[in-house]
């Protein structure tokens, strides 16, 4: 597979380490009253669609960036990739 790195262009997927569901960016509030339940959902109940999936890849043998890659799990077609730090910061802005 080839990952379209937003800074480096198409890179061999072998340079990357896979983590999973991009929702892992959205770590729950540890001070929430139901924090334990929220953390259990966050850690264990991840998206697993047969179709378009937003997921985290780490460019371990490259620039060490974490990417959010949008990929179809049935065809493996990749629809886009963003720097996870951009996604995380944008999410923060959005939730403010």
């Amino acid at each position, binding site marked *: 597979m*080839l990952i379209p790195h937003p800074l480096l262009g198409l890179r061999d997927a072998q340079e990357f380490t896979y983590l999973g569901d991009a929702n892992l960016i959205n*770590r729950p509030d540890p001070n929430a009253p139901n924090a334990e339940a929220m953390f259990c959902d966050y850690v264990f109940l991840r998206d697993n669609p047969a179709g378009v999936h937003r997921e985290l890849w780490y460019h371990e043998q490259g620039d060490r*960036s*974490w990417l959010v890659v949008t990929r179809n799990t049935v065809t493996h077609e990749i629809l886009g990739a963003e720097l996870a730090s951009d996604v995380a910061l944008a999410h923060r802005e959005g939730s403010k």
Partner: protein
Amino acid sequence: MTRLSGGLIDRNSSFSFTFDGKTYTGHQGDTLASALLANGVRLMGRSFKYHRPRGVVAAGSEEPNAMVELRSGARTEPNTRATVAELYDGLVAKSQNRTGSLAFDALGVNDYFAPFFAAGFYYKTFMWPRAFWEKLYEPMIRRAAGLGRLSMQADPDSYDKGFLHCDVLVIGGGAAGLAAALTAARAGAQVILCDEDFRLGGRLLAESHRLDGAPATDWISTLEAEFETLPNLRVMRRTTVFGVYDHGIYGAVERVSDHVVEPGNKVRQTLWRITAKRAVLAAGATERHIPFADNDRPGVMLGGAMRAYANRWAVTPTQSAKDPVAIFTNNDDGHRTALDLMSKNVPILGVIDSRENAPRFGDYDLFSGAMVTGTKGRLGLRDIEITKGGVASWHRCAALGVSGGWNPNVHLASHHRGRPVWDDTLLSFVPGADGPAGLIPAGACVGLGSTAKALADGAKAAGIALAELGIKTPEVALPDAEDMPVSQADFWHVPGKKRAWVDFQNDVTVKDISLAHKENMKPVEHLKRWTTLGMATDQGKTSNVSALAVMAELTGKSIPQTGTTIFRPPYTGVSLSVLGGGDTGVNFRPRRLTPTHTWAKSQGAEFVEVGQWMRAQYFPQAGETDWRESVDRETKAVRVGVGLCDVTTLGKVDVQGADAGEFLNRMYSNMMGTVAVGKVRYGLMLREDGFAYDDGTCARLGEDHYVVTTTTANAGLVYRNMEFARQCLWPELDVQLISTTDAWAQIAVAGPKSRLLLERVVDEFDLSNDAFPFMGCAELTVCKGLRARLFRISFSGELAYEIAVPARYGNALMARLMELGADLGAAPYGTEALGVLRIEKGHAAGAELNGQTTAAMLGLGRMVSAKKDSIGAVMSRREGLARDARRLVGLQPVGSTERLMAGSHLFTQGTAHSMETDQGWVTSACYSPHVGGYIGLGYLENGDTRMDEEIIAANPIEGSEMRLRVVPAHFVDPEGERLRD
């Protein structure tokens, strides 16, 4: 036997080769199959199940029968298709799957018992008595099964891997592929043309068609000359593209030196991973046969193959007017074989055409509306039975060409689970629209089989690829070529009671399919798995469609309703060694060497692999006969004098930034950001699920500068997790990370005399306890100006330091410390002594910190701060983790001097030993010179409340059992006075 006229062999060359020990000669340009045929050899192998005599069927990679063991000794290569084995001088081949000689195979007796070996018979028997399966039935089956034999010796050749990138990859160098490559290359695109053959041309080489009125080879030669001048085109002969992978990545194997006796200093094969923006699949078509009674005798071959042998290799299985050649066909193409053979003066019995009003194309006997209904000949075809209008007659015939129509090679176009679609006109499957993205099939593999159509379609496909890439397509003049329509009958097999083979290699007959139908194994995948149809080395290339037709007939459905099989890589078999490629020995994976490796080697150290690192395990000295002796000595040196150990392998991460402290607070379970400048703190890291996974230290070198150390094994993982936290969880923090593991040689200097020794190397630095206390750190210089970092930390429980210098100086520093410490009893120690020292001190390592343990189990429950958030803190409080009552304890044998084995399980005295009564296990154990006996660490249920209890350590796998006393997990200096001294 003499050759025919013409052909593409170099008659001036003479290659000597052997088959089953007999010597023959052939020519450059021959395959093993063509050379054997030229020498009158028709019998080349035995079938899988019935051990029936078999000869060559095809002229390409689809060959199911002519499988040989090529080469000898460690280079023996079983199951090699003689049809694609390029002949070279000195080639050695043997037939396979025979007991005795090829002509008198003892297991040929299986054929007489064929009725007992019907499809799926083994699922129904061999069940009683139970034990006989492994002892009797299965070994018998295994011996009879299989085809070739491995030498059982290591492959002596070397293999390469490589990566290529291009705009357009053209797969197949036949008419369509050549036109595509020419078009794309003239457009200036980066083009790669791969062909599995050793000569470009594909089917053009096998036909007598002319291009622009001249032999096709003229056009090919002109093209090859032009190709040489195009730097943007790479032509790869002997290269099979075997699979299509995601995002335009193609797997290909180049047979670099399979056409020579030995590769010499070259590799045998290269695995290429080709990344192509677009690809043109010009893989051609494969002819199918027509099952009829006893259709598997040597001499019965595909009509197109017979034509290829005559035209390209100038051979035919028979040239005797007494034993002529016959053609059995359901289509026009079969007649071409007859015409080509006649043009080379090969005697023809006639063309048997299943069609009632079969057309005639030349002056030969035509049997219209006729079928071949039987054959005779023990080791090769002698007679055929022709039935016409219900009347059967026998005819002498030594070779029969069978033409059942052509199947487009849809293989690669279907690798992404795309389904080929049925074409009612072509009576075959063609590539579906859901093929791999960027792959454009063209020519005979989409059913455009005439030379003119293939040429035009190849150029058109290249044009599509170029347009998609935004490259202008040039006008390319293609030669005038044959464009004859081919008509064909919907005729799939000859009905009859005798066995008619569908899958030659695996001995699957029409009857087997009929039995599968009867037993409700109707879905095509069930049919395949029940009968083994299509599972042979040719993967059903010549048989699948015929089998579907037979099943369709039985179920009353159409062929596409009956199903298609799923095509999976590889297109043809790929040697395991080229896929494995690269180094198989000590360089199989990288080895990391410590900065003091050279020195340790010079001291005769034994090395052990830890993570990717090679670490000194112990340093045997003259007179020491046993590793324990060395380890005991090294351990004692640390306890009474000073020991030196390279600890560079611990991961080091440089953490800087205004928020570095806050960031570390969130990474570690304990408070870390508050460690003072010039101090070190021990830290524990949890996974987000609350389990402990790594520990280490964090030194604060400056206001916003920390150095984190990790365990050797987890260095990469901790770094990855820190980057995850930095980029994904808390991108607002000002933190910069970089690994510095390799940059610094770090040496532990441990033991009561460590301060004395260090004082001899530091440049004007006060090492006194007051000036540089336990858990202090500093940047300084040593050995007259070498920059260094010093940490006062201890893994052994002794007064100890770790000193770090630029890695290039590690070796020299180690030597210097040894030299200066000679009078202090300085000794190097390896990982074994390190292990003993830490067990004596009760420090956890990999065996205790195995990803399944909680902070509480380690006795570090209080290190999970409740005052702040950190990774894993919330989930560490879950019920299951909180209730886990196992605790790390020390263990000491009672009344036994036997070795305590890590991995023993712990039981309360007097209980039966079972999973239910299991109380824990011994995580680490060693001989402790300090204690004077074996000691261990282990996790024990409620261990913290069971001090002094005697328990049982059971190790049934090695038949041992001993009593242990539960003690605190500190065998040395429990108050920790020494390290603070």
